[in-house]
C-alpha cells in the first residue's frame, strides 16, 4: 500500500468526520474523504478501510444518520448527516483534541529545551 506518511492519527478521524459534516449538508463517504483531503491542502488522506467502519460506529453511537439517495450522477449512495448528539460529541472531541495538542506541545517544548542544552 506504499508509505503511510499522512495517515490520520487514530481517534482524530471521528473529529474530522464530525467537523466535516457539521459544516455542510449530508455527504457520502467519498465526498467526506475528498473534503478532508482538500481542506487539509492534500496533507491528510483518509483511508477507506478506516473510514467506513468509523462511519458505522458513529452511526451506531447515534452521532450520524445515514440514508440511501441518488447522487447528481444518478448513482445510489449512502448519505451521512450529523445528529444533535453528534454535535455534542463534536464539542467533546474538540476539547479533547485541544488538550492533546497542548500536552504534545508541552512535551515537544520540553524535548526542544533539552536539545538546546
Amino acid at each position, binding site marked *: *500500500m506504499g508509505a503511510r506518511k499522512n495517515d490520520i*492519527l*487514530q*481517534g*482524530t*478521524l*471521528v473529529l474530522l468526520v464530525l467537523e466535516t459534516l457539521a459544516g455542510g449538508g449530508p455527504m*457520502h*463517504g*467519498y465526498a467526506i474523504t*475528498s473534503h478532508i483531503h482538500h481542506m487539509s491542502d492534500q496533507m491528510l488522506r483518509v483511508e*477507506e*478501510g*478506516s473510514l*467506513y*467502519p468509523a462511519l*458505522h*460506529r458513529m452511526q*451506531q*453511537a*447515534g452521532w450520524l444518520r445515514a440514508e440511501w439517495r441518488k447522487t447528481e*450522477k444518478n*448513482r*445510489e*449512495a*449512502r448519505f451521512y448527516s450529523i445528529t444533535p448528539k453528534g454535535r455534542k460529541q463534536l464539542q*467533546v*472531541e474538540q476539547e*479533547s*483534541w485541544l*488538550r*492533546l495538542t*497542548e*500536552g504534545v506541545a*508541552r512535551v515537544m517544548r520540553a524535548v526542544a529545551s533539552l536539545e538546546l542544552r
Partner: protein
Amino acid sequence: MMSWLVRLWNILRPGRLERELDRELSFHLLERADELQANGMSREEALRTAGIQLGNYRLYRERTRDMDIQQWLEGALRNLRHAGRALAKAPGFTATVIVTLALGIGSNSAVFSAIYAVVLRPLPYPQSDRLVTLEQFNPKARQPVIAPVRLADWNRLNTTFQAMTGYYTQDSSELSGELPERLTQAFVSRRFLEVWGVAPALGRDFSPAEEHFGAHGVVLISDRYWRRRFNSDQNVVGKRLRFAQLSATIIGVMPASFQPVRNVDLWSPSPDDAPFAQNRELTWYTGVGRLKPGVTLEQAQANLNAVQAALAREYPRPDAQISPVVKSLKESTVGDARTSLWILFGSVSLLLLIACTNVAALLLSRAAARQQEISVRFSLGASRTSVAAHLLSEVLILAIAGAVLGLGVAAAAAKVFHTLAGNLPRVEEITLDWRIAVYSLGCAVAVALACGLLPVIRGTRENLTGSFRNNRTTVSNGNRLRFTLVGVQVALAVTLLAGASLLIRSLQQLGQVSPGFDPEHILTFQMSTSWAETGDFKASMARVDRILDGLRGVPGVENATVDVGLPGVPSDYQVELKTDQGRAETEPKILAQGRAVSPGYFTTLKVPLIAGEMCRDQATVRQMMVNHAFANAYFAASSPIGRHLSQPGNIYVPASEVTGIVGDAREMGLDKEPVPTIYWCTYPFQPGTRFLARTHGDPALMSETFRRKLHDIDPARSVFDMKPLTEQISDAFAENRLRTILLSFFAGAAILLASVGLYGSLSYSVHLRRREVGLRLALGALRLRIVRQFVSQGLVVSSLGCIAGLILAIAVKRFLAGMLYGVSATDPTTLASVAVLVLAVSFLASVLPAIRAARLEPMRVLRED
C-alpha cells in the same frame, strides 16, 4: 441500549450489513474511478487503480464487522488479557486485593454453606415440607411423648394427615468386638416409612404381620451399620442379627441419607397391639406425621384439636387434660440454630462489606495513579464505556481469583463446623457443592461491581479537569473519599468487635457462675438399657445399686450416683405436686422441676444439706428432698420436712416424704437461676440415665479403669458418652462457643482489614503530599510535628468510625439480646474497651506512614517533579 439492539439485529440478519457495505464500497470505487478518469486515465486503468487503492473488499468487511457480537466478545477477552497483564505488573497490589477478597468471600461462602445446609435446604425426604412433629401437651406432666393408643386414635380419626407414626429409642450393645459397643435401636410404630416417604435401599419394609405383638423379630439396618458391620454385603437381607439378649432377621438396609434420628442403626417394629400399650396414661412415642397435600399447619392443628375433643368425651380421664401440638418438622429440627446462623451470616456479610470497601479504596488509589494513562486513552478516542470495561475487567479478574481462593477457605471452614458444633442440627449435611461455588462466583461478580464502580466512575469522568496538567489538583477530593471509606471500615469493624466482645464476656460470666454444685472431678457415662427391662423395678434398681457399689470400690473414686439428666446441662421436667394435707384453692399450685436421683447424689455433687437429713439408702419409706427455693416458695411459713408430696397423674411415683432441704443448684442449665426443685430419692434406671462418679484426680484419666470395671460387673452392656461433667456442660453450650469463636474470628479479620485500609490510605496520602512535607521540612518544620499531623489525621478518621460503629452496635443490639448472659448489650465497659482497642490499633497503623513522612529527604523530594 440502542447499539445492543443493532448488534442483535446484525446477528439475526448477518447478510444485510454486508450487502449495504458492498453497495457503499462499490459506489466509492466508481466515484474514485471517475475522478481518476477526469485526470486523464482510461476507464479501465482508472477502475483498476481505484480497486487497488481501495484494497480488498473482504479486508474491509472484516474490519467493519466491529458491530458483531463476536467482535464484542473478542473485545472483552482482550480487555481481560490486558487487565491480567496490568495486574501482573503490580504484584503487591494484586496479592493484597486477592487475599482480602478471599478472606471476605471465603468466610461468607463458608457461613452460607452452613445456612444453606441447615436452614435453607429442605430436609432430605420427599415433599419434606409436609412432615410435622406431633406432641401431646399435658400441663401436669410435661412430656411431649404420646401414648400409643392415642396416636392410633389420632391417625384413625383425623382428615388432614396422610399418615401418622411414632418411635422411641434405646441403646443396646454390639457384642462382636472386644468390649460391648453402643448400638442405638429405634422402635417404630406402623406407617413409619410411609410417613418419611423413604423405601429401603435394599430389601423391604415391615409387613403387617411383623408389626403384631409376639411376631418374629425383624430389623432394618442403617447404611452406616451395614458398611461397618457387614462390609456392604449385598446378601445381608435374611441374615440373623444377634445383639445384647435379642436376635432379629435383617429384612433391609436403609439409604445413607435416611437419618431421621441421630445415631440410630437398627429400626424394629413396635407392636401397637401389645397389652402394655393399651393404657392411655402410658406415653412413649415421639410423633411424626405427613400432611395431606395442600393442608396447612393451622388446618391440621384445628382438625387434631377436634379429634382430641371427641376423645376427651369418650375418655375424660386422662384425655380431657391433653391437647395435641403440631409443629413443622424442619422448624423443630433447626429452629434454634437458625438465629445463630443468621447472626453469623450477618457478621460475615459485614466482613465482606469491609473487604469490599478496602478493595475499593485500593482501586481508587490505583485509578488515581493511572489517571494519565486513562486521559491518553480518552484523547485517542476511546469511549467511556471501553475505558470503564477495561477497568472493570481488572476488578473482575481480582474478584474471581479471590472467590476461587475463598472456596478453599470455605472448604476448610466446613471442617470447623463439624469439629466446633458437633451437635448443631444437620451439621453432617454441610458440604461444599456446586451451589456454594455458584454462590461464591455470584459474590465475586457483586463484589466486582460494588468495589469497581466507584473508582471507575471517578476514573472515567468525561470532563477530566486538566488531565494533562499536574494531577495534584484532584488529589484532595479523592483522598477525602478514601478516608470516608476507611471510616466506614472502622465503623463496621467496631460493630463486629463489640458483638464478639459481648459474647466473650457472656461466656466468661457463665464460667464464673457459682452453680451450687461442684462439676469438677466428675466422670459421667451411660450404660445401655432396654425399656423392656424397666418393667422389673426390683431387678433394675438392684442392677444400678450393684454398679454404683462397684464404682465406689474403684481406687480413686470418692462417690458415685445416678441422675436422669446431667446437672448443669439444660433440661426441663416440670411437675405439679399435691400435699397430703391438701391446699386451699386460693394458694398457688405447687410447680417444681423434678429430678430422680440416687441417695448419694448430694454428697457426690457437693450440694449442701440445709435442714433435716439426707434421704437414706434402702429406706423403707419413699423419701424425697427439696431445695431451698422450693421450701421458700411453697412452705415459707411452715417447714416442708415431714410432709408427703405426690404427683397426680404419674402412676410410677407414689407419695414420698420430704426428709430434708438442700442448697439451690443450677441444674437446669448454668445460665438459669435455680428454680424450686424436688428430688425423688430412688435408683433411676430407664434408658438415658446418667452415672456420675467423683474422682480424686483428673476424671478423664479414669475412663479406661471404669470401662474395664464396668465390663467385669456387666459384660453384656455397652458403656458410652463417657466424659467429665465439665466437658458435658461445655458441650451443651457448644452453639454459644461456635458463634463466639467465629464472631471473634470475623471481628479480628475486620480489625485487620480496617487497619490495613487506614495504613494504606495514610501511606498514599503521605506519598501525595511528599512535596508539601519536603518543603515544610526544608523550611525547618520539626519532624515530630509532621508525625503528629499524620497520626492525628489517622486517629480522627478512626475515632469518627469508632463512634459510628458504637452507635451501630447499640442500634443492632436486639439481635444479640437473647444470646448474652450476665452482660447487657450496651455494657459500657465492654464497649469502651472495644473503642480503646480499635484506637490503639489505628494508632499503630497511622504511626508507620507518619514516621515515613517525617523521614523524607527534602531535597530529593523537591527535585522529583
